[in-house]
């Protein structure tokens, strides 16, 4: 019975969630179902407030944002339950094995762990609407405070990784796609297989060893060298140093970013370069490219304009997804480089069964995926008019 109870909670809550989603869908469909042509005709007649509202609700991105809020809500329910259903006593873990039982019991009461899950969730939701995400059992601070402290370091790492990723993936993909099976292509292929096969934390150690230890070109770990300090404004050291006009600190921060971002980027670069290459090779033989050759347009124009643009679409999609997944997957790299980021925080939370922190971190990662999918949509619809006009 005790085992079935959480399952019953789970199914009950899922049912409620499902009906909420259905209700949302129906409402949205009801509001937006008017024929698009109809609203166009109304535009000629004059803009009514209702029509404007319809157009607004019909907007693809508006709908997307609404759906992602619903999704995040669902994620919060799911992860809230999973974190609590898993075996292990958070109160005991937080206080240590030697704490007396009555203290642990008291602590459990404080955290409302003695109450049913839906009650706990209800209180958690109320807290969220008040801007609190619950107490972390490890740091004894509000989870939101923790996240705002640790997130910028990871965001900075990811942004820098993305820059390296974009440059690397496109240049390698184009180089190997331009002349398939040439020496360059084959070297890129070997690099790509190594890049995909070797996990990022191994790259981290290799790069640390070679670039920092043997060649002594770059700092091995940390965000800033000892003795250099930057006032915290946004939490992104590079931006903060620029804002406060400290160029030495900026250079130092960038130098510290290179090895971690490179080791995170290599796997992504390898995968994306291969995908870009495959798409280029496929598109170069398409009739729409041959048609351009038939008209005597120079090969480089054809390649970089007519073949590259359609080939970029899958690569960009994967690139953005990689970016979101990095938020959760960067923990080993963050550990190796002593990087005070969110992944490391999240892993600690999981190991210590820090309930509220787990929910908070997962929600942030979920949010990152949502943002990533909106970015994908924006970029893909920029690249592909078919997608743009379908909306």
């Amino acid at each position, binding site marked *: 019975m005790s085992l079935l109870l959480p399952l019953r909670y789970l199914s009950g809550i899922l049912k409620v969630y499902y009906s909420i989603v259905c209700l949302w869908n129906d409402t949205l469909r009801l509001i937006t179902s008017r024929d698009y042509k109809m609203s166009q005709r109304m535009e000629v007649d004059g803009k009514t407030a209702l029509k404007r509202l319809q157009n607004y609700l019909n907007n693809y991105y508006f709908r997307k944002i609404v759906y992602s809020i619903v999704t995040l809500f669902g994620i919060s329910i799911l992860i809230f339950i999973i974190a609590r259903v898993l075996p292990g006593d958070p109160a005991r873990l937080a206080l240590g094995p030697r704490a007396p039982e009555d203290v642990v019991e008291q602590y459990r009461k404080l955290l409302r762990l003695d109450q049913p899950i839906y009650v706990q969730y209800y209180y958690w939701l109320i807290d969220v609407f008040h801007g609190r995400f619950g107490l972390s059992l490890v740091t004894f601070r509000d989870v939101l405070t923790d996240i705002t402290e640790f997130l910028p370091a990871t965001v900075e790492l990811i942004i820098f990784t993305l820059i390296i990723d974009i440059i690397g993936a496109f240049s390698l993909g184009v180089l190997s796609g331009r002349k*398939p099976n040439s020496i360059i292509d084959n070297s890129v292929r070997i690099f790509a297989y190594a890049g995909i096969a070797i996990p990022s934390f191994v790259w981290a150690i290799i790069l640390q060893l070679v670039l920092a230890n043997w060649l002594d070109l770059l700092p091995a770990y940390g965000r800033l060298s000892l003795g250099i300090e930057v006032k915290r404004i946004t939490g992104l050291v590079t931006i903060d140093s620029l804002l406060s006009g400290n160029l030495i600190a900026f250079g130092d921060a960038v130098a510290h970013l290179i090895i971690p971002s490179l080791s995170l980027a290599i796997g992504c670069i390898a995968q994306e370069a291969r995908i870009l290459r495959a798409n280029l*090779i496929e598109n*170069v*033989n*398409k*009739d*729409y*490219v*041959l*048609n*351009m*050759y*038939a*008209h*005597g*347009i*120079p090969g480089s*124009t054809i390649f970089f*304009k*007519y073949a590259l*643009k*359609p080939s970029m*679409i899958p690569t960009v999609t994967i690139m953005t997804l990689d970016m979101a997944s990095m938020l959760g997957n960067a923990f080993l790299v963050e550990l190796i480089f002593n990087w005070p980021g969110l992944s490391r925080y999240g892993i600690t939370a999981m190991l210590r069964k820090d309930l509220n922190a787990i929910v908070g971190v997962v929600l942030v990662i979920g949010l990152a995926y949502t943002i990533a999918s909106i970015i994908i949509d924006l970029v893909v619809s920029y*690249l*592909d*008019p*078919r997608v743009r*006009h379908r909306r």
Partner: protein
Amino acid sequence: MLLEINDLHVYYKSYWYTLKVLNGVWLRLDRGERIGVIGESGSGKTTLLKSILKILPQNGMIPRGEIRYDGKDILKLSGNELSKIRRKEIGMIFQDPMAALNPVFKIKDQLYDILKYKMMIEGHNPSSKELYEEASKIFSDVRLPDPDRVLESYPFQLSGGMRQRVMIAMALISAEKLLLADEPTTNLDVTIQDQILKLIHRLVMQKNLSTILVSHALGMVYQMTDRVYVLYAGDIMEEARTRELFSHPKHPYTQLLVASTPRLSSVGVGEGIKGKLPDYRNPPAGCRFAPRCPYVMDKCINTKPGKIQVNREHVVSCYLYD
């Protein structure tokens, strides 16, 4: 003689095997003449046209053969001379306009580039206004209304007929001497087919273009061409004046092909030809039609028949007429 093709071989290579598609194709085309190439799907018609412009896919190669255009061998031309021919002299209508127009660029982007590079070879760097005027002129030639809308559209926003008209417009820009039309009506509705056919016919007559019309629509070939080549599995089987070919087909393949065309006067549909195209990885050593031929002889299987002159303007590649 505008175009003369001799002993053209085209292979497609992949990692595991080589497809030996064209097997010594020969063809000639006089100035102002319109010829047709007929044959079933997969017999190498499109490959033949693509090799005339040297725009085969990357795995395509031409191990042997000669394509003499205007006295020059296209296969041996330098890049500059070749792009001059591609920009100004030969134009090609692709089979499927949806596939031949880049889906992620506006018609404007593609058409203006084609126009621009053609004008550049005439030593003139056009402004966008000139490009627009030129484009509208060509659009009115192909009876495309509302050039502003078409130019600003992406291919998927146009109807099939409009796409094919855009395709023809593009081909016309380059085709000042020779037009290659690769099944220009196959992917269209029947009602549109006739319009497009008439349009091509009118334009070809008006500009006195030499034309190679590739099709498996025999009726269309009959209407539009002076001479016809029959291509089967990468071999030219028969060549004759159009009327002669359709009234007195000599090669067994041509006979079966013509007989299998449905006619209004006959009951039901034609018989069709039994069997299927040979495997290009390992094609028959002799006549490529031998495995399907009702009159097959021993020598057909081992040696390929040469050109056999039946009468002055009728050539057939078959031992039956040896």
